[in-house]
């Protein structure tokens, strides 16, 4: 009796499909179908050839596209340089403080994204604390400013997506067998070579996942560019938003959005080939 009940729960061939059903249907209806709708809208220009939206996207907004990816790339590199040491300290040096540090890394992100970015506007503003400190250290020329520059935009992007870099690196460092690290230090007689030969290669899956999780949202983000940059720092996301919601040139807007997506997919695939990991999830 009990045996059949158990078999009933365990082996019903329909059970997994019933369980995934509602969520999967939702994702198909509101993720897959919308992507198709976006593609359709992008080729539905009333006048001109079907690819008219794409032609204008590259001709008129190539600069914005380039800036989006340049800022995202710089922010990803900066997040790696800042995030790796912190993740390393959390995994190997924090001892009992590990969980506290983990909490501290996540905590700032419980305040609203937009309010945080506005706070950077205050910090970086003319006469704000960052300008004063940097001028005092002669790192910034007189009358130099931070707000409304590319530096501010990259800084804001780095800040807002840093946890997405830190957490995957931390997880992959945490998984490394400590005995391996000790053995490496014995064999290579030095912590630095032990790190470059053993610890760093083993943490690459985390670096890989972290850089994708930073780069992808950063390339689509337009809040940092809008709040911390000037019109000279306008990125593709801003254009897509404006074309969809204000100008209402839907074919162009959809083409821009589609181009952003295709380029990201292409970059991610290349990156995956180069680093050769599929352990994203």
């Amino acid at each position, binding site marked *: 009796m009990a045996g059949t009940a158990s078999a009933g729960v365990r082996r019903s061939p329909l*059970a997994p499909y019933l369980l*995934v059903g509602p969520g*999967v249907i939702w*994702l198909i209806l*509101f993720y897959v179908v919308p992507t198709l709708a*976006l593609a359709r809208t992008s080729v539905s220009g009333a006048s001109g050839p079907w690819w008219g939206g794409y032609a204008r996207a590259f001709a008129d907004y190539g600069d914005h596209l380039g800036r989006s990816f340049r800022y995202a790339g710089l922010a990803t590199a900066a997040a790696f340089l800042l995030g790796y040491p912190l993740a390393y300290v959390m995994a190997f040096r924090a001892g009992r403080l590990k969980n506290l540090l983990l909490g501290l*890394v996540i*905590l700032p992100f419980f305040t609203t994204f937009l309010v945080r970015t506005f706070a950077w506007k205050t*910090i970086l*503003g003319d006469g704000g604390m960052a300008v004063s400190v940097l001028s005092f250290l002669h790192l910034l020329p007189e009358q130099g400013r931070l707000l409304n520059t590319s530096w501010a935009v990259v800084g804001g992007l780095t800040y807002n997506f840093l946890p997405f870099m830190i957490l995957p690196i931390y997880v992959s460092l945490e998984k490394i067998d400590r005995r391996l690290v000790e053995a490496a230090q014995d064999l290579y007689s030095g912590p630095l070579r032990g790190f470059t030969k053993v610890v760093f290669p083993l943490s690459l899956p985390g670096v890989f996942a972290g850089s994708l999780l930073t780069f992808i949202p950063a390339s689509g983000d337009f809040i940092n560019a809008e709040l911390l940059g000037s019109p000279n720092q306008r990125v593709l996301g801003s254009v897509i938003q404006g074309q969809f919601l204000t100008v209402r040139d839907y074919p162009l807007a959809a083409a821009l959005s589609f181009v952003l997506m295709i380029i990201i997919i292409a970059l991610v695939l290349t990156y995956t080939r180069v680093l050769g990991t599929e352990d994203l999830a």
Partner: protein
Amino acid sequence: MKTSAREGAVGSRVGGRVLDAVAGLVLFYLFLPIFVIILYSFNKPAGKFNFVWKEFSLDAWSDPFKYPALVDAMKLSLKVAAISTLVATVFGTLIALALCRYRFRGSGPVNLLLVLPLTTPEVVLGSSLLALFLQFNTPTGFATIVIAHIMFSVSYVALTVKARIRGFDWTLEEAAMDLGATPSRVATKVTLPLIAPGIVAASMLSFALSLDDFIITLFNAGSEVTYPLYVYGARRAAFPPQINVVATTILLGSLILLGIVVFWQERQSRMAMAEPGK
């Protein structure tokens, strides 16, 4: 030999200090805007914009509901977050259970479908949904915001719950059944308590993401205004310190919630450790 090892140790000690210092600076960077947000909730700005420090005041804290539009926006955000979290937690948990407990045809594509929304920039997610709603002449508003929030939350919930219950010992369920428990009793007395911590963590994440979402919401909100949308609009008209009061309150609220959950989970794991035979 011995000296070189000692030199290595000294070198690593200095290197370690440097590393600790860098980590400290990065933490400072992470917290700098948070200090500013909290500090400026006590500011009495000279004009309509709370971007420059003038003087200390408790005005905003003693009158947090001064701006009805801000209060309405907050109410809307909480309502959207509550509904979308509830639905997404159910959908996502069911997917996670299916993926962890069964081997079935199509589990690969399901996994892919979960990861894809996370690797798509928000501006693409938001504009795709809007393109869909435009094609079907669906007016955007409350319902479309909730639809969008459920969509991006399902993936986060499913992946979080999945990560927590991977490697979980499902024979416990069979043991309970062998001892005569009915399937519904097994579900409520064995399965649910074991996966509960994962579900709680996932639903908190989902709630936080919904409350914070700006870009996807912007595309699908119609004339509705959530809290992030209110903050965005505030850059043009007026940016009162009450915005900082709300942000600080959200931070404190999540801190308290996080504390409760951590305390509860530690107690649970301690109880599990104390059980005989474990």
